[in-house]
């Protein structure tokens, strides 16, 4: 099996309510150095050997991310 890790984050300029809330909370807790928090999704994907990254990209475009509001980053992390 091949393993991929996928990070899904909001596109630049899309408001991220959980991130903004965590950011305010951290500052309120005294971590005044915090400038920005963005919260996204982390997906671990196991697929048959030989599956191309293009195929994984297709899965992201179709279901795992919404290209209207989200960007994603795919990383092949080896064999399971």
């Amino acid at each position, binding site marked *: 099996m091949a393993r991929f890790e996928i990070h899904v984050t909001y596109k630049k300029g*899309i*408001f991220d*309510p959980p991130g903004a*809330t965590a950011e305010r909370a951290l500052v309120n807790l005294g971590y005044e150095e915090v400038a920005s928090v963005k919260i996204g999704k982390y997906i671990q994907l196991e697929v048959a050997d030989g599956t191309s990254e293009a195929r994984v990209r297709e899965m992201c475009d179709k*279901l795992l991310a*919404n290209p209207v509001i989200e960007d994603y980053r795919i990383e092949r992390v080896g064999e399971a």
Partner: protein
Amino acid sequence: MRFGVVIFPGSNCEQDAVHAIRHLGMQADFVWHGDTDLAGYDALVLPGGFSYGDYIRCGAVARFSPVMAEVMRFAERGGPVIGICNGFQILAEAHLLPGALLRNRGLKFICTTVDLRAEESACEWLDLAPGTVLRVPINHNEGNYICDAETLERLQGNGQIVLRYCEPDGSRAAGGSAPNGALDDIAGICNERGNVFGLMPHPERVVDPVSGGTDGQHFFTAIAQRLAEVS
């Protein structure tokens, strides 16, 4: 006039929708998400709820259910489709409507009744004088409408913004009147053709005075009237 009300696993407003339509003297049937035969329906309702648990994103899985391929064909032929709450999210995920619905700005699930202003629009589902104010409940966690600037301009230019959140007098607050943070106070939009309509508020809950109002009646009677005139 016969409405098909689609049930996805996790839908929970389909009974209200069917009750509302029947209360108004029209016919309504449930359509299961695995069904692929929509013959005999004049209009389709995608009801509220949490289709497929709303996992990944609201509506993201539902849009791939067998019935949705038929819903898309129905819409392409000009058939009227209304998506209410989760139904709106499904229509957006299916790209039948532009944009997306994000988590509410304040991170809270909002359950309240809001004032909505009918805008001058191409929507076949509404036939109200622009500026008419309606009181309709909302009940959602992801109703914060967003789209890019170019799309917003197109929505405004084409008369695709059907409903906006507003103040009781129909005005819009300087900081925005949308309780969920929606862009441009958008509560409901339609496609360019006007036959596909998505909105976060629940008109099906206010068709009978016993449930707090009748401002939702219009959403079902206007389309019936329009279809009767066409045929």
